[in-house]
């Protein structure tokens, strides 16, 4: 009985450790999801897109700030499973989006949003 227990422990512990590592390294698709209104990145991107398309610049400015804050929250969660390059690219997109919204540049804002969507969708790849 004792021998069987140690045998399970001998093989089981490494298997469990490796399983935890695999889960942690592939956790991005789950962890990038929204857990509340404060970190709803796709929801806020859609909102900013709608405001920009309709020319509602005041609301766009408010939602861009909320979007950047949401992205920072998500970054904290997914930084262990996503490459730094992807995170940096989305951060740069959002920074440029903020500038475009401030300048009320619809074309520039939509370009940045388009790229941000693409980066967001391929985040875990």
């Amino acid at each position, binding site marked *: 009985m004792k021998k069987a227990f140690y045998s399970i422990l001998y093989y089981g512990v490494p298997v469990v450790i490796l399983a935890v590592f695999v889960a942690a390294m592939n956790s991005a698709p789950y962890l990038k999801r929204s857990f509340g209104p404060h970190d709803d990145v796709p929801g806020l991107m859609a909102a900013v897109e709608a405001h920009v398309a309709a020319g509602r610049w005041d609301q766009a400015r408010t939602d861009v700030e909320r979007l950047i804050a949401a992205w920072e929250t998500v970054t904290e969660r997914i*930084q*262990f499973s996503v490459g730094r390059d992807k995170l940096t690219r989305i951060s740069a997109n959002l920074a440029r989006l903020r500038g475009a919204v401030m300048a009320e540049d619809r074309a520039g804002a939509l370009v940045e949003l388009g790229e941000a969507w693409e980066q967001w969708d391929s985040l875990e790849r």
Partner: protein
Amino acid sequence: MDQALVVVVRGIIAFTSLLIFARVLGKQQISQLTFFEYVLGITIGSMAASLTTDLRAPAWPHWVGLLTWVLAALAVQWVTLKWRYAAKYIDGEPTVVIMNGQVMEKALRTLRYRLSDLLELLRTKGVFDLSEVEFAVLEANGSLSVLRKSQHQPLTPKDLNLPTSYKGVSTELIYDGVVVDQNLEQVGLDRSWLEAELKKQGIQSPEEVFAATLETSGKLYVDRYRDRVKRLVDASDFKGPS
């Protein structure tokens, strides 16, 4: 994004994975290191390093790369175990480089070994005179096995028909001041016997002992923490931090 924190987490993943994979690959990696296995070890280590510090890419592809190489190494090990022809092809074979006291120049050329390389390997085996060697075989892992001519082989008790007593592996009974009860039990002895033996040598407690081993002849070897050497021999030959 805290890069240092990410490196720490990825370092733990790489270190632990490598530890588990190395155990799976077995002792062959250290004891029978062929050139291929040497390169394999470096590559796997390099991948673990990239997994830790190359933050540009996600950890997962690095880890999959590591796993792929480990599985490939395991597959090669399995194939060479099951199929001797493949083992010969993959690991190579021992090559006789000195036969009946004569250097096999053609074999050396095939191995891309110079005479100086052979002499160097012989010296590491304690052979400084080529004429002492009857056979020398370069093993697949690059080490040289040497058979000296009979007149140059060390004299053994058997040569003189001297009787010898059995000598096996000694058993540790005290390790760093702690009695190893498991080993005591294994040799059919107990603590009271050990304490009595220690008292014979003027030792009051096992805690005074750094190491104690029982030889197969039944003799107890004891090394105390308090060494009775009056003047230590200094191996250093130059002033500086030691």
